[in-house]
């Protein structure tokens, strides 16, 4: 095989699986990291296909993340609704929980946490929004629809205290959506359950790739700063 065939194999694997590690194909991974030409071709393809290419030489890991939600490689809202049985409101809560998960991984530099901590952090952020809204219109200040997330949050009932430690939860409750969020992210290999249990989660190699991509996302950075209480988060 020549360089182009190796590169094409890597690209096809990435398009099919979105990620590739040493276990999947040691030969291709070694070729990718040791041959500049192969790496250049894969990078060129990723660039043209609007894919963010992430690689970590220490973990022998490569993955692609769509740069645009409009492309063929990316879920659009309809795909997510259909695949994960979400509607407009549960989707908003799913996005909120996803944000909090990345916030914990990213900003607090946590590699793993218990699901109770996630729920606690989510509650704290909602409380912060409520209290800030009493003083100032943060929607206008940050041009972000905090009211919208409050509305969705309040539509879902609070779970009984014990529900968070149970495997199943009512889908109409906040805990139910939180567990659904964890299951979705687990299926997408963005998080891993510690010892197979949903009650504690940890980072995967793909989490690092997503966190790297999120560093370039202005909205994520703005929200992160806001929740941390940093001044001028809107800058």
């Amino acid at each position: 095989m020549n360089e182009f065939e190796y590169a094409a194999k890597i690209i096809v694997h990435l398009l099919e699986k979105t990620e590739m590690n040493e276990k999947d194909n040691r030969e291709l991974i070694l070729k990718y990291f040791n041959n500049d030409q192969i790496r250049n071709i894969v990078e060129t393809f990723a660039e043209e296909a609007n894919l963010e290419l992430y690689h970590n030489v220490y973990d022998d890991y490569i993955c692609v993340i769509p740069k645009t939600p409009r492309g063929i490689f990316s879920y659009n809202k309809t795909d997510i609704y259909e695949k994960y049985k979400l509607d407009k409101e549960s989707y908003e809560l799913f996005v909120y929980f996803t944000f909090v998960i990345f916030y914990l991984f990213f900003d607090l530099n946590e590699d793993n946490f218990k699901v109770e901590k996630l729920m606690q952090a989510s509650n704290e952020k909602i409380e912060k929004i409520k209290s800030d809204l009493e003083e100032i219109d943060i929607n206008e200040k940050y041009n972000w629809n905090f009211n919208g997330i409050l509305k969705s949050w309040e539509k879902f009932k609070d779970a009984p205290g014990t529900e968070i430690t149970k495997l199943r939860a009512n889908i109409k409750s906040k805990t139910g959506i939180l567990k659904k969020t964890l299951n979705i992210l687990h299926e997408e290999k963005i998080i891993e359950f510690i010892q197979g249990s949903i009650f504690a989660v940890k980072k995967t190699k793909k989490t690092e790739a997503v966190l790297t991509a999120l560093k370039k996302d202005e909205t994520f950075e703005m929200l992160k700063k806001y929740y941390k209480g940093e001044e001028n988060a809107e800058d």
Partner: protein
Amino acid sequence: MFESFNERIKNIGIYSAIYNNLSRFRNIPQEKSISLAILSLTYIFENMLTGESLILIDDVYDYITNIDATIKKEDAVKILESIIFEKGFSGINFQYYDYENRKIVNLNYKLIDITTKYSEGSQKIFLKLTDVGKEFILKTMEVYKELRITMELLFVQEQFKRGAFDEVRNSVDNLKFAVMTKLDEVNNLISEIKRAPWRVDFSYISKVYDFTLNQFEKEKEIFDRIFYLIKDIDHKNLNEKKKQKVTYIEKSLYESREYHSKLLTDYQKIMKNIMESGKKNIINFIVNKISIETKYIDLLFRGENFNPESMFIFSSYKPNKSFCFKGLFDNPYFEKEKHVILEDVDDEENIHFIETENKKVDFLVTIFNRMNNGIAKLSDIITEIEVVKLDLIMHLHQMKLIDFNDSEGLIRKAYNKCDLNYDSFEVKSTDKILKYENIEFTDFSFIPLKDDIYE
């Protein structure tokens, strides 16, 4: 069977002789002595390539002791001696039994010549590789054939210095031949990369590319040095015959230098061609892998920039979708303002762009209006196919569901020109194959949807 035996054993014997002679030291580990000996030969060789015909033995000792601080000068002397002498005689030996002639044969390999010269007030020892030494070191280099021009140039330079014009005359012919052969090779390689890249040994190119390019630069310098030598010739002291020879040599060298300059330029094109061919090659490979009917490919990529997403439209293969995190957390309170940046655009290009865009908008208006009467088929709308239209249909098909409330760009423009009784529409491919001239493609259906249906 015995015909090539002696030649083969002669080639193998040299390795054995070197190994035997370098594995006899008590205080130098064998693995180090072998490495240092080969490095010393390479050092002498590389110095010779830069035009030094003789290398001072002390420089080689310094080279060895600089590489490995644990090796003392007396050890360096032993290492070097063991590839120059054996049992007090010049050359190193290898014995084998010749079954053809039924006798033991002794082979003696002289890798290095020793010369003494009076220099800087004292007698000094200089080394140079013999032909056997050069051949040995070249055989161990993957880039052997990349050095042919350099070797010819060095011959010309040396012969010039000695004033051996007859020999120079032969050498410049060899040089010209070597340069032209290499130029042919490079041009054949470029056309092969363009025409049949799967036949090209890319791993070899990547190994020798930088080396060869660097070597061409060095050769340019040797050319300059030779021309400097020619300028120094005092023509008054030459007889007519010699003058003619020098004129011939000069002319031939100029021609070789011209070809050599072209060689350097063409060689630099190799990488550019590899990248271009790589793009085509990769498309072909992926296309095969995902079984796109190749008849679509030319049409899809003709005159358009490569769009990796387009290739999936006609394929049964679908890439795995994943979350795009960019924009996932966007939830603006105010509608986003659209920033328009005005840039200078070439008028002709601009006119072409506007024409194409208008054509696309008109085509969309036709489709949208048809959908007021229910499901519309592409085959009912078009009478001829154009790349612009096909490209647009593929784009719509990629979007699958188009909601006018979220629409922008061309779709919004077309929507504003219509009065529609539906809010969104879906694009689906059908089993029907359409044929226009020599082009075949799938028919598509456009299905109008109302808000209450898809929400």
